[in-house]
């Protein structure tokens, strides 16, 4: 016999779909099938069942081989490393629950760490822009029920957030959007003809890196003022047309992604995108939302927001919280050699940081907490596999629109495996002992 668990939350991307169904064996130990998830979400659930999954911590030896150790030894190693560091970097925090993030912050505080999350390579520049000029925001529920003009700027949900378009932004029929797709006009701005662009009414194939110019041109076009013939590779007629489409909507939502946050201009691109949204509010209702990647990167920003006042790049090394992107951000710290150990949980900087930073991690004392084998675990000294959050343990996560959703446990973790939170709590207790607190 099998059981079907309904209303399961997918712990992969910031869309945080909450309508999955998962079939598990009667004893709750095996996960058999996943329904309603996209290909990525389904793979995440199914991979937890992989036979070659690591279930015990391991230490990397001089020659690159691995030696299994117990969780107790791993806790001791981690506690000693953090307690003896002057300025450890504690990075990641996006693929775990808010409960673990809370315990991690406590460790950061007593060890004088720099706490940084994956926003640092994702929407960190958006956070800077929001601090600069604010943000007219809304929830995805409002998008579904009200939005009739949808813009995807430098993001490709068809690949990165596969169910976003069907659940919220393009296809669903909502209270005021009874015609679904037909009632919405979709504009995509992207240097590639992406699969998202293929379902759009308008695709502006912008010259890569010229987002600021085009955003600025839109603001000019809203006012009906003159434009040069071509801006950022787009003829002015198309820009005027797009401006009219936006102004004539009842509710405009602008989603934006890495195309704007990682191209030159960075936070200033987002400043301008927010200014476009603000301008639009003179003609209609408009909101803007970052397409957050990891399922709980938003949550780690929220947790640190209320604990320290800053959503990423929090430097606690002086005994109080400092925040200065460019100085207290992971890649700058690593490249300048300003941290003396690295602790990673819930992210894979080995795969997603520039190589110059990865090399620095490999040269420092390092611990990586991750259910998977990754390029980060390959270069870290200690690898601690843990239970999958959202699969083998529940906990709170924040969707990309800042709505907290409680994830669910659907199967048992392999016997004897610890969760992020349990591991961190033991490390915290041990650090307090070492420090004599």
């Amino acid at each position, binding site marked *: 016999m099998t059981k079907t668990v309904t209303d399961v939350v997918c712990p992969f991307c910031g869309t945080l779909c909450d309508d999955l169904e998962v079939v598990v064996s009667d004893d709750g130990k095996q996960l058999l099938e996943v329904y309603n998830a996209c290909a990525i979400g389904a793979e995440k659930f199914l991979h937890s069942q992989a036979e070659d999954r690591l279930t015990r911590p391991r230490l990397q030896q001089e020659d690159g081989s691995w030696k299994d150790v117990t969780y107790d030894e791993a806790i001791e190693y981690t506690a000693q490393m953090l307690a003896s560091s002057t300025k450890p970097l504690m990075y990641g925090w996006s693929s775990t629950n808010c409960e673990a993030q809370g315990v991690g912050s406590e460790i950061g505080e007593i060890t004088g760490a720099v706490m940084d999350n994956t926003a640092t*390579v994702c929407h960190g520049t958006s956070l800077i822009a929001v601090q600069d000029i604010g943000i007219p925001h809304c929830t995805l529920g409002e998008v579904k029920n009200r939005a009739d003009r949808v813009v995807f700027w430098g993001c490709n949900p068809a690949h990165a957030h596969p169910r976003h378009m069907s659940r919220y932004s393009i296809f669903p029929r909502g209270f005021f959007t009874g015609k679904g797709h037909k009632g919405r006009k979709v504009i995509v701005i992207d240097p590639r*003809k992406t699969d998202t662009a293929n379902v759009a009414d308008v695709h502006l194939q912008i010259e890569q890196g010229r987002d600021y110019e085009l955003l600025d041109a839109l603001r000019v076009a809203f006012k009906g003022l003159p434009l040069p013939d071509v801006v950022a590779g787009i003829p002015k007629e198309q820009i005027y047309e797009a401006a009219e489409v936006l102004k004539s909507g009842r509710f405009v939502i602008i989603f934006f992604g890495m195309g704007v946050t*990682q191209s030159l201009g960075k936070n200033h691109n987002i400043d301008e995108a927010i200014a476009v949204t603000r301008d639009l509010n003179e003609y209609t209702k408009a909101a803007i939302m970052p397409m957050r990647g990891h399922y709980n990167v938003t949550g780690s920003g929220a947790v640190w927001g209320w604990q320290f006042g800053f959503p990423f790049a929090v430097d606690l090394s002086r005994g109080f919280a400092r925040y200065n992107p460019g100085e207290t*951000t992971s890649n700058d710290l690593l490249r300048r050699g300003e941290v003396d150990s690295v602790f990673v949980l819930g992210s894979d900087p080995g*795969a997603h940081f520039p190589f110059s930073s990865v090399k620095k991690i490999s040269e420092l004392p390092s611990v990586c907490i991750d259910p998977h084998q990754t*390029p980060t675990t*390959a270069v870290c000294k200690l690898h601690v596999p843990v239970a999958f959050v959202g699969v083998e343990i529940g906990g709170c996560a924040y969707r990309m629109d800042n709505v907290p959703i409680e994830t669910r446990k659907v199967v048992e973790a392999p016997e004897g495996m610890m969760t992020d939170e349990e591991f961190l709590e033991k490390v915290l207790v041990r650090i307090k002992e070492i420090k004599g607190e």
Partner: protein
Amino acid sequence: MKKLAIKVNLITGRSIQQGVSMEGGKEKPAYTAACGIIELDPAEFKRLGTYRNTNVRVTSEYGSVIVKAVEATQGPHPGVAYIPMGPWANMVINPNTYSTGMPTFKGTPVEVEIAKNGQVLDSLDLVRKACRGEVV
């Protein structure tokens, strides 16, 4: 004879294959097949004078990596090349943050040249070997 190299503007980002294979295990061949590639327009293949699915060396001011050249699935995008986000792309992207904390993952000028006998390493190997200075 000097080897022929073409100049393109490199961007990185997600793809659904990248997401699926990453969750399936970054040590597996599927991840290499999904991310150890560079997507080029047909016009660029012509300029480079080679067929699709040839291994190429991608070099920037910041590093170099061997990946397989494939035809752009979401193109054409003249002058732009695409490597899905991952350790291969991160060998060559511009790591400078210009005081924002954010490396410049998009918009790195690179050169692409044929490397028929070059081997595309898997992600764990690539990072491990590169850290030890065993690959250039």
